[in-house]
C-alpha cells in the first residue's frame, strides 16, 4: 500500500460512472482507468502483495446487462468505493491477521453448558464454517471492513452531534436519543420484568389520548415501561409523552435526559397543548405519594393529585385510558421514609428499603418481578360542554371515577397473580 502511494503521483480515473459523472477512483498504475472502468483486467490488479482485495472481474460497461448483473455491478462499485474510502482514511493501515483456531476454541468453551448432542452439532457446524470460509482471507477482510465501516458510522454520528447538527422538536424530544436508549428499556421490558400487556386496542392509533397510570416502585421505572410497551408493541408505535414532576428539571442530567426522551414537565398548560397536538400523553396522578409508597401500602392508590389531568382531558375532549401496572410495587421494598434525609439531600422523599442505603449502589437495582400492564376501556370526555374544566364538582367526580376503575383493575390482576416473580 505504502509502496503504491510513494512510487507515482496518483491520477483520477478517466471513466464515467453510471450517473454520467466522472469517476472518483484513482487510476491504476500505468493506466488511465481504475480497475472498475478497465475493459481488460490487468495482471497487476489480481495480485496484491499485502493481501489487498480483488473483488472479481468487473463487467465491461459497453455490454448489455441484465438487471441482476447491474445490481451486482453497482454493489461491487459501492464496496470498492467504501474500501477506497477506508484506505484513504487510514493509508498505512494493514488489517491484523486473524486466527480462526482461537475462535473455534472459544466456541468449544461456550458450548460446554449445553447438552451433548447439541454441543457436538454446533461444534461440527462451526468447524465446517471455519474450514470452508474462515481460512479464506477474504471473509475476514470483508468482516474487518464491515466493522470498520460501522465504527466510522458511529463516529460520524458523534462528530455530527458534537458539531451541533441534530434536530429536536419544540418540547426537546430527540428521536436519535430515544432510539439510543431503547435497547436498555427494551431489555428491562422484555427480559428483566417480562412485562405482559393487555388492552393495546384501547390506545388510539393517531388521535389524542390520556393514559392514566398508577405510580409505584420508588424509582419511576413504570413510566419507562409503559412508554416502551407502546413504542415497541403497539401497532402504530406511538411515543408516549409522560408528564413528570417539577422537581426533576432541577436535577442535572435527569432534566435533559427526560426532555430528550420526549417527556414533559407536568402542568395543565403543557398537557393541554400536547393533547391539542393529538399526542398520546401519560400521567401518573399519584405523584410522589404514589411512587414513594411504603411496602405495606402497596397497591393502595394514593390521592389523585388535584385533578389537573381531568382538566387537560376536559379542555381537549381526549379520552382517558385507565391503566393498571402490577409488579412495580415489589421492585424495591421500602420500609420507611426519612424526612430528615430527604431534607438534607433535597430529594422529594428518601426511602429506606431492605437494600438501600445499606448496600449502596446495589440498592438501586430493582428486583426482577413479573410485570403486568393493563390498558382499560377508555372513558370518553368529548360529550361534556366546553368550559367543563372549571366545574370542580365534575372534575373531582371524574377523578374519583378514574381512580376507582384503576383500583379495580389492579385488584383483578392481583387476584389472578400467583407469584410476584413468575406471574
Amino acid at each position: 500500500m505504502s509502496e503504491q502511494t510513494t512510487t507515482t503521483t496518483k491520477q483520477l480515473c478517466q471513466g464515467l460512472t453510471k450517473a454520467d459523472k466522472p469517476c472518483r477512483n484513482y487510476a491504476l498504475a500505468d493506466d488511465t482507468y481504475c480497475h472498475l472502468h478497465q475493459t481488460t483486467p490487468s495482471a497487476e490488479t489480481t495480485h496484491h502483495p499485502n493481501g489487498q482485495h480483488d473483488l472479481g472481474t468487473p463487467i465491461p460497461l459497453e455490454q448489455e446487462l441484465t438487471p441482476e448483473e447491474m445490481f451486482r455491478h453497482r454493489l461491487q462499485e459501492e464496496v470498492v468505493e467504501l474500501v477506497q474510502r477506508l484506505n484513504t482514511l487510514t493509508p498505512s493501515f494493514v488489517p491484523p491477521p486473524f486466527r480462526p483456531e482461537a475462535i473455534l476454541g472459544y466456541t468449544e468453551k461456550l458450548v460446554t453448558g449445553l447438552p451433548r448432542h447439541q454441543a457436538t452439532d454446533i461444534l461440527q457446524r462451526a468447524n465446517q464454517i471455519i474450514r470452508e470460509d474462515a481460512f479464506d482471507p477474504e471473509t475476514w477482510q470483508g468482516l474487518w471492513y464491515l466493522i470498520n465501516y460501522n465504527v466510522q458510522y458511529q463516529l460520524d454520528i458523534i462528530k455530527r452531534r458534537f458539531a451541533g447538527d441534530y434536530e429536536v422538536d419544540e418540547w426537546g424530544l430527540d428521536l436519535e436519543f430515544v432510539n439510543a436508549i431503547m435497547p436498555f428499556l427494551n431489555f428491562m421490558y422484555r427480559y428483566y420484568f417480562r412485562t405482559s400487556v393487555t388492552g393495546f386496542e384501547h390506545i388510539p392509533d393517531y388521535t389524542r389520548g390520556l393514559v392514566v397510570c398508577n405510580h409505584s416502585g420508588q424509582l419511576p421505572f413504570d413510566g419507562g415501561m409503559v412508554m416502551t410497551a407502546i413504542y415497541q408493541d403497539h401497532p402504530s408505535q406511538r411515543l408516549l409523552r409522560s408528564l413528570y414532576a417539577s422537581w426533576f428539571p432541577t436535577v442535572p442530567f435527569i432534566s435533559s435526559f427526560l426532555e430528550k426522551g420526549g417527556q414533559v414537565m407536568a402542568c395543565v398548560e403543557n398537557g393541554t397543548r400536547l393533547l391539542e397536538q393529538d399526542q398520546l400523553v401519560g400521567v401518573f396522578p399519584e405523584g410522589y405519594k404514589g411512587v414513594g409508597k411504603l411496602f405495606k401500602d402497596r397497591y393502595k392508590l394514593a390521592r389523585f393529585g388535584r385533578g389537573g389531568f381531568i382538566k387537560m382531558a376536559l379542555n381537549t375532549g381526549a379520552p382517558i385510558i385507565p391503566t393498571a401496572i402490577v409488579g412495580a410495587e415489589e421492585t424495591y421494598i421500602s420500609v420507611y421514609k426519612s424526612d430528615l434525609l430527604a431534607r438534607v439531600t433535597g430529594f422529594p422523599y428518601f426511602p429506606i428499603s431492605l437494600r438501600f442505603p445499606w448496600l449502596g449502589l446495589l440498592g438501586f437495582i430493582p428486583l426482577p418481578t413479573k410485570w403486568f400492564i393493563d390498558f382499560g376501556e377508555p372513558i370518553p370526555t368529548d360529550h361534556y360542554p366546553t368550559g367543563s374544566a372549571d366545574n370542580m364538582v365534575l372534575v373531582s367526580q371524574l377523578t374519583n371515577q378514574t381512580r376507582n376503575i384503576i383500583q379495580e383493575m389492579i385488584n383483578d390482576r392481583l387476584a389472578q397473580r400467583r407469584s410476584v416473580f413468575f406471574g
Partner: protein
Amino acid sequence: MTKSQVVLITGVADYWGARVAARLTRVPEVRVLGIDSNAPRQKIEGMDFIQTDIRNPLLVALLKAEQVDTVCHLTFNERRRKSESDFDLNVMGTMKVFGACREAGVRKIVLKSSTDVYGAHPDNPAFLPETWPLRGSKQYGYTRYRIEVEEFAQGFSKQFADELVVTTLRLANIVGPTAVTPMTKLLSQPVTPTLLGFNPLMQLLHEDDAVEALVHAILEDVPGVFNIGADDYLPLLRLLRMVRNVDVPIVHPLAYWGVAMLRGTPLKPEAYLPLALDYLRYRWVGDTQKMAAEFGMELKYTAVDTIEEFIKLKKGPPRARRFLEADYLRQIIDYRQQQRERMNDE
C-alpha cells in the same frame, strides 16, 4: 393606518432606537421624531431629532406641540449591574414617559421588553403564556428593571384601557450580526460556562424581525402583550456547538457558589455570564401562539437561519486572521448588497 401619523421614538442614540427610526423614515405616511439625551452617532435621514432627556418635565408640552399620536419607548440601559442611575432612567423614566403620554393625549404606546421577565424556573410550563406571572431573576439589573417597567406598564394599560393602546412586545433572545444583546455576548465569547447536565431549549429572534415587530406594532393597532420569537428552538449546547464555542460545564452548586463568592472581586464571574445562571439551567420559552393568531406579522427568519447568518458574519476564522480573508469581506459585501436591495424593494 392613519395618514400622517406622528411617531415619537425615545432612545434614538442607542441601537434599537436608531434601527426603528431608520426603518420608519421609509414609511411615507409617518413623520418620525426622535429624542435622546445623546446625539445619534449617525444622522438618520428624515428623522427630526430633538436632544432632550425622557425625564424632562416639559415632555408633555413637546408631545402636545408636535401632536404625537404614537410613542415607541425604547430607552433602556441594558446593564447587568444594578445602579441607582439605571433605575432612575429605566423605571422612573418609563413612568414619566407613560404619564406624559396620557397627559398629552397620545393614542398608542409601544414598549419593548424581553422574555427574560418570565424568569427561568423548574416549574415553568414549556411555553410561557403572556398571562404568566413575571418571576424573572432579580440578580441582574436589566431583568429586575424590566420587570418593574412591565408591571407598571400592565397596571397602566389596565387602568387607562379606554384612553390608550399599549402594546408590549416581549422579544426572545435577539441574535444578529449587528445587535449587542446578552445572547450575542454569550455566543461571541470563545469560552462559555455552562451548567453540567442542563441543556435548556433557547428561543431566538433575528434582529431584523425584532425591528419589524416593533414597526408593525407602531403602524397597526395590536393592543396587549405579545411574545415574539422564532418557532424553532435550539438546545443551548447545540447552539454553542453550532457557533463553535467551547463550553465549560460546571457542577451547578459550585457555579452558584462561585458566582456568589467571587462577585465584586477582580475575577468578575458575571463578565462571562451575560445571562444569569438560572437562564442556562431551566427552560424559558415564550408561547408564540398569540403572536401567530393576533399579531398579524410573520417572522422572516427561523432560529437556525438566524444562527447560520450569525456564524457567517460574526464567527468564522479567528479574529486576527479573519480580516485578511477575502471570503469574509465578500460575505459582508453580499450582505450589505442584500440589505440595500431589500430597502429599495420597500
